[in-house]
């Protein structure tokens, strides 16, 4: 920019600086203006009738006045109407962040309460379910379908393999019996039943007794003396559902027992817990015998 032009610029802008700041008539005519230079504005409103006097709209929005003045000025909202001026209403502050935060906190609290209530209800239902014996007992043949994917074949007899007569140190008045079983499973199905928690029942002196299968390591010393391999001694942890199994279910029973019943429970999931739906059972006579070579 040349020096001449620079001078012209300032000349032009001198007009600007010499112009009045505001051209509103009320400002020019407002003799009671609180912004009037040199005038003490403290308690100025005490004797002023705001309903009659013109109101400076800027005052309403001004926040640097003391509380007393602000209250006095802000109360007469209709003053603007009385003066025929339409003022912009002060905007209500919407605390959107606060609302969002409170919403999320509410959701979190409701989730905790809901989860607790749901658990309490589920627990109550489960306790009620577990104390309701509702299963049925079904007598089956030596071959039957345990589940849609499990076919079970039983030998049809329980054989006494070991007793104190043929094993020194064997518990008195007891015998070890074995039941041959084959489980043919067509496929693995997620959640399908496996044959487990098998137990044996018998009656002695008119009293009912029930036995679960002993551990393999307890049976093995006796069974191995009769030629049984460890893998032939089936455990109670589950048979079938995608895996074919065959072997012997061993039990200890009193020596005078001549008939036993094998129970095979089938469970279903109900109210978050496994409940017995059906118990399949087969009764066998106990015979004396030796391990067959092909089994």
């Amino acid at each position, binding site marked *: 920019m040349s020096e001449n032009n620079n001078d012209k610029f300032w000349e032009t802008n001198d007009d600007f600086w010499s112009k009045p700041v505001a051209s509103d008539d009320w400002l020019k005519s407002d003799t009671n203006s609180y912004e009037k230079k040199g005038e003490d504005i403290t308690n100025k409103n005490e004797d002023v009738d705001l309903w009659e006097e013109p109101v400076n709209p800027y005052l309403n929005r001004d926040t640097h006045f003391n509380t007393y003045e602000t209250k006095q000025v802000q109360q007469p909202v209709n003053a603007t109407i009385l003066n025929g001026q339409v003022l912009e209403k002060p905007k209500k502050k919407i605390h959107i962040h606060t609302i969002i935060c409170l919403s999320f906190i509410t*959701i979190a609290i409701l989730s905790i309460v809901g989860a607790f209530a749901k*658990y309490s209800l*589920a627990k109550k239902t489960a306790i009620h379910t577990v*104390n309701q014996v509702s299963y049925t007992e079904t007598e089956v043949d030596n071959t039957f379908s345990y589940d849609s994917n499990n076919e079970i074949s039983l030998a049809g007899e329980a054989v006494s393999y070991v007793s104190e007569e043929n094993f020194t140190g064997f518990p008195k008045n007891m015998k070890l019996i074995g039941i041959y079983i084959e489980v043919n499973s067509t496929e693995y199905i997620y959640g399908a039943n496996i044959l487990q928690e098998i137990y044996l029942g018998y009656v002695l002196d008119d*009293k009912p007794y*029930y036995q*679960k299968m*002993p551990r393999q390591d307890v049976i093995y010393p006796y069974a191995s003396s009769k030629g049984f391999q460890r893998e032939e001694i089936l455990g109670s942890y589950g048979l079938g559902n995608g895996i074919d199994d065959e072997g012997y279910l061993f039990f200890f029973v009193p020596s005078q027992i001549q008939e036993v019943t094998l129970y095979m429970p089938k469970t279903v999931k109900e109210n978050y817990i496994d409940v017995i739906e059906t118990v399949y059972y087969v009764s066998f006579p106990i015979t004396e015998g030796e391990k067959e070579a092909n089994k």
Partner: protein
Amino acid sequence: MRAVKIIITVFVAIISIFISLLSFAILFSETDYLKYEAMGNTDPVITTAEIAYLGNEYNGESEEGYSYYQLNLMIENNSNYNYDTNTVLLHYDSSAYDDNDSKHYSVLPIKEEIFGFDETNCIPAGKEATCTKVLCIEDGCHGFLVTYHNYRTDKEQIIAIDL
């Protein structure tokens, strides 16, 4: 200032969502253990108790001044789960009998003594079954109390046995 507000809002939202998800995760994980919670609220009941004298010797064992008895308990299981008879823990007390003086007994869980395991007796769901225990009792004892405290339901059964 606006940025701080946004950060706080996002932080609160993340924490709240995390708490919500966590509460439901805990709910679903806890429901897996409802089986045990439910089992803990079942109540096997001893219906009858009988005692039979076995002699001064049992299974090749004998102790001077002691005799062997077999305690037969009928236990009713009204739940939908099979029980081991060992879940029915018994406590024996002979001090209630004044004339017992200092007589006492010891308990030999029959299966444990014979086979080295004690979990084969069971009480199937919905059935009544017999549970046997062999007791070695000092001669001169006239009786004792069998106490079954169900720790699941905190109920207690006391049965008096006269010898």
